[in-house]
């Protein structure tokens, strides 16, 4: 008799009792859990003594006090080493209120007839055109390894940000007989993907959108993402408070038609409107590339002939290029926002630039695989699943409202390359970077 088999037996017993509480006698439970009579009776006795099971007046069993305490669990972890003082709200302080998306409380349709596992998954990726997207893919592959008993294979396609290409790639994936489709949608202003994806969801195929969702909310089962609103709003609030509510600001966004770009920009502008002395001098799209950020800031420096007081970037992917443009122009480097990429943290810390980063977690790729497996197992999940976004600030850069969840000096990886995305979680280990 080993602990391992006993743990399996404990789980079986608790599951049987949990499924139909106060229904079965001890003999019934032993049979249903497929245990030997002697072992089953003794284990149930031990579980009763330890409070996991309790007897009802009808001599049936139900889950007990110890089982009721199993749910004590922290939903997200933070470093226990850094806790910054938080002042109380002042009357003139801009609200940091967020809206909760209604889809967080709506249920996705459960999958009625999922075939038995292990399952084959397809991932139609918009592109792997920048380090963040490569990290997303890395996180997906890492999770496939973790779920090796549930997922036999993942088929992958890269649409290079072209919705027409993505549409044909989706058909190719479907033709191979996949059990669930993950999609990170290519920018698709005309809704080219909508009809096909709607057909697939109607046919009962789980469609899990990750990071970038298709434009129509009816054409996917669940959307795994992080809050773009939080990222846009809180980074803008940090910049405005850091500038004491006054100054010229440039806005550098990602890809023009990508949904996160639009949501972050809208949220940032919403906050900046509360600060009448902040002048939004210019706005540019950068394709979330360092080169895009470099060109945008270099060209704006030519137009305005002096550096602004602050640069709001919706990601460090372009932020790192923007900082280099100021360095090359031998201008004072203004405070920047935008995290994600190790190079942004390295450069900003080295140059002692004040900055604020809200890392958009590339580890959501791993979460999307968890979600696919849960849906195929028949669990009911919300229409939208958000992964947490951490505020990362260097020492001394906190403002009235924005406090660090993680301190940048501890977060940066001096031993890793500039293009490494730190928010890919455990997939970062063994990435060879």
């Amino acid at each position, binding site marked *: *008799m*080993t*602990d*391992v088999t*006993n*743990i399996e037996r*404990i*789980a079986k017993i*608790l*599951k049987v009792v*949990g499924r139909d*509480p106060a229904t079965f006698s001890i003999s019934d439970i032993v049979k249903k859990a497929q245990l030997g009579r002697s072992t089953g009776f*003794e*284990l149930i*006795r*031990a*579980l009763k*003594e*330890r409070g996991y099971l309790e007897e009802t007046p009808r001599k049936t069993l139900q*889950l*007990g006090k110890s*089982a*009721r*305490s*199993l*749910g*004590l*669990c*922290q*939903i*997200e*972890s*933070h470093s*226990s080493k850094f*806790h*910054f*003082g*938080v002042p109380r709200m002042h009357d003139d302080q801009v609200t940091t209120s*967020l809206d*909760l998306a209604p889809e*967080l*409380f*709506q*249920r996705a349709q459960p999958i009625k007839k999922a075939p038995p596992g292990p399952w084959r998954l397809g991932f139609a990726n918009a592109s792997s055109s920048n380090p963040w997207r490569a990290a997303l893919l890395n*996180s997906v592959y890492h999770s496939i390894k*973790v779920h090796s008993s549930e997922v036999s294979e993942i088929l992958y396609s890269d649409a290079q940000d072209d919705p027409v290409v993505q549409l044909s790639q989706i058909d190719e994936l479907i033709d191979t007989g996949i059990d669930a489709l993950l999609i990170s949608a290519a920018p698709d202003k005309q809704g080219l993907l909508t009809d096909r994806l709607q057909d697939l969801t109607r046919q009962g195929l789980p469609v899990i959108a990750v990071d970038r969702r298709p434009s129509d909310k009816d054409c996917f089962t669940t959307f795994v993402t992080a809050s773009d609103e*939080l990222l846009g709003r809180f980074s803008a609030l940090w910049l405005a408070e850091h500038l004491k509510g006054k100054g010229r600001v440039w806005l550098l966004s990602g890809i023009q038609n990508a949904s996160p770009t639009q949501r972050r920009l809208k949220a940032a502008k919403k906050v900046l409107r509360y600060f009448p002395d902040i002048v939004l001098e210019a706005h540019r799209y950068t394709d979330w590339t360092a080169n895009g950020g470099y060109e945008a800031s270099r060209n704006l420096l030519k137009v305005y002939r002096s550096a602004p007081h602050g640069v709001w970037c919706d990601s460090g992917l372009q932020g790192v290029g923007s900082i280099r443009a100021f360095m090359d122009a031998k201008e004072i480097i203004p405070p920047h926002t935008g995290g994600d990429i190790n190079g942004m943290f390295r450069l900003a810390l080295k140059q002692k630039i004040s900055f604020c980063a809200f890392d958009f977690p590339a*580890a959501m790729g791993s*979460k999307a695989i968890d979600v696919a497996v849960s849906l195929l197992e028949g669990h*009911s*999940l*919300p229409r939208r*699943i*958000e*992964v*947490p976004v951490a505020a990362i600030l260097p020492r001394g850069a906190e403002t009235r409202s924005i*406090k660090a*969840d993680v301190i940048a000096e501890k977060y940066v990886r001096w031993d890793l390359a500039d293009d490494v995305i730190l928010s890919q*979680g*455990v997939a970062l280990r063994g990435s060879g970077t």
Partner: protein
Amino acid sequence: MTSSQKNSYHKSIDRFEYLLDAARSREIDTPYKLAQITGIPQSTAYRQIALMEKLRLISRDMQGRFMIGPESLRLANKAWDIQDIEVLAEPILRFIRIQTRQTGFLGFVANGDIQLGLYSIGLGCRFNKPTKSGLYHFLDVIKPLTSGRYDLVDDDGLRQPVILCPVVGNDHRELVIGLLKNDQKDETTTDDLALVTDVVNRFRAGLALVSQKTES
């Protein structure tokens, strides 16, 4: 059945609990460290961890840290006779934490006690962590439970002020959402209560949708 065999069942439950407690701390990211902390022999611990992960009694977060798994949460909720709340509760608790920077929690009230379930740790000087067992007792007998500020005590007799707002209940237990407070002043209570009440209304709407779907 020999007494050593009987003891081995308790020993197995002990190890089951050690691993769950270590995962609950959310600070351990390798099976090696988990084995070290629990004191279980390495090879046994590795096999037990693999099995508990497979059974989803423990799982890992996006950073690879061990955490309580969905099957454990489901069992706990079944034990409280409430289903499918964890996925709805997560965004709500994160929202409460962001808005108040205090510790938001889901709790179950029964027989003058409150057992905490999922929680989200607040940041800053008002940071407050639940006790290890997550179990508190009401100082006074309160029936029916209404939204408001209450004083609880933990097993060591330490006082813990909280904001509580009931969600759903029956004769045996009440599901509540609340905030652990560590100040004795009342100045933030009104705002906190309004926020938690708003959140509870959204949560109730989500639960109603769940039961509609279950019925259909």
